[in-house]
């Protein structure tokens, strides 16, 4: 059943991304310049709703959830994020939104996907020498904020989720230009 579910989830996700204009690299760059915060607010709202829902479910049907917490190898995760951010700022796409953009008929999205495929190829070639040693540095394993704070995961999800909602409510969507 997984292929069917995953395809349907992908279709819905692609549709949402297209509707909030996150597949527009111009919109992404306006968000990164902090001129318009709609995509950042969309992402924060997604996470707030998702975390409160998932951790509520975990109180009632814990055995039904398929968690997959990614390991926190601090140096590699941070370095990867910093490299990713440069690419995000230069191209205006992420690995998922470029595929959505391709579906919309954007040629620059197709070029971004091609760049991603080349990037993946170079990565697989240099992995053993450059990357594998890096991901062993400061590896804390699969930890969550609840592990870190020794609090109930549901309470942490509620607190973080509500905090996100407050920030979303306070932030403007269109930022007034001071210049």
């Amino acid at each position: 059943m997984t292929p069917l579910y995953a395809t349907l989830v992908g279709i819905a996700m692609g549709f949402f991304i297209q509707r909030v204009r996150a597949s527009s690299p111009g919109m992404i760059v306006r968000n990164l310049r902090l001129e318009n915060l709609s995509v950042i607010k969309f992402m924060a709202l997604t996470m707030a709703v998702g975390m409160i829902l998932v951790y509520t479910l975990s109180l009632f049907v814990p055995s039904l959830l398929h968690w997959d917490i990614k390991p926190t190898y601090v140096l590699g995760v941070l370095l990867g994020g910093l490299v990713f951010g440069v690419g995000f700022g230069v191209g205006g796409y992420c690995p998922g939104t470029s595929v959505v953009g391709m579906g919309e008929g954007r040629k620059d999205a197709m070029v971004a996907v091609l760049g991603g495929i080349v990037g993946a190829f170079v990565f697989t070639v240099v992995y053993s020498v450059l990357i594998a040693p890096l991901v062993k540095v400061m590896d804390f394993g699969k930890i969550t904020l609840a592990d870190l704070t020794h609090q109930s995961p549901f309470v942490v999800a509620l607190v973080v989720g509500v905090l996100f909602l407050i920030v979303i409510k306070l932030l403007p969507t269109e930022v007034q230009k001071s210049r």
Partner: protein
Amino acid sequence: MSYSPSGGAASERQSRYPAWAFYGVLFGILGALSILAWGPIGVSGTYPRFIGEILELVAPSYAGSNEYIQKVGHLFSKGETFVVIGLLVGGFLGARLNREKAPACEMIHPSEKTPARRYRDAFIGGFLIVFGARIAGGCTSGHIISGITQLSVSGFIFAAGVFATGIFTAKTLKGRHQATGA
């Protein structure tokens, strides 16, 4: 609320709720359902799995000995691959059902004066996002959306890195141009 995602209904709805709010709630529910159905949403692992399949065809002995290709596994053994196929269809449907035509080549920085410059930026950007995502073990979907939804510490660290250089890069590419007056 019930509606069909067709042109009229969509525009009527969006006048009451901003699109980011409406679809943000839906995407949050979708992410939770996905964790119920098979696991958190992710995308970027599909790129090296795709490379793995090609190398299995053209250089099977290299593919068999490459540590990373063996680590990421086969393309069609992962739900993620089908998510990516869905993204392509979802993007198409989102534009088509709302009668939108996306620009084939959208200029995003002042320095992108020709399509060639735009394609160059898109290629470099595409290269770096996938390379960076693979160092970190996930991208905007796997690390940020799904990671932070699960309260994973790695998701918060990755997001901090992405927005630090993302904001700096986007602002610099705009600002430097204005400073030179070009």
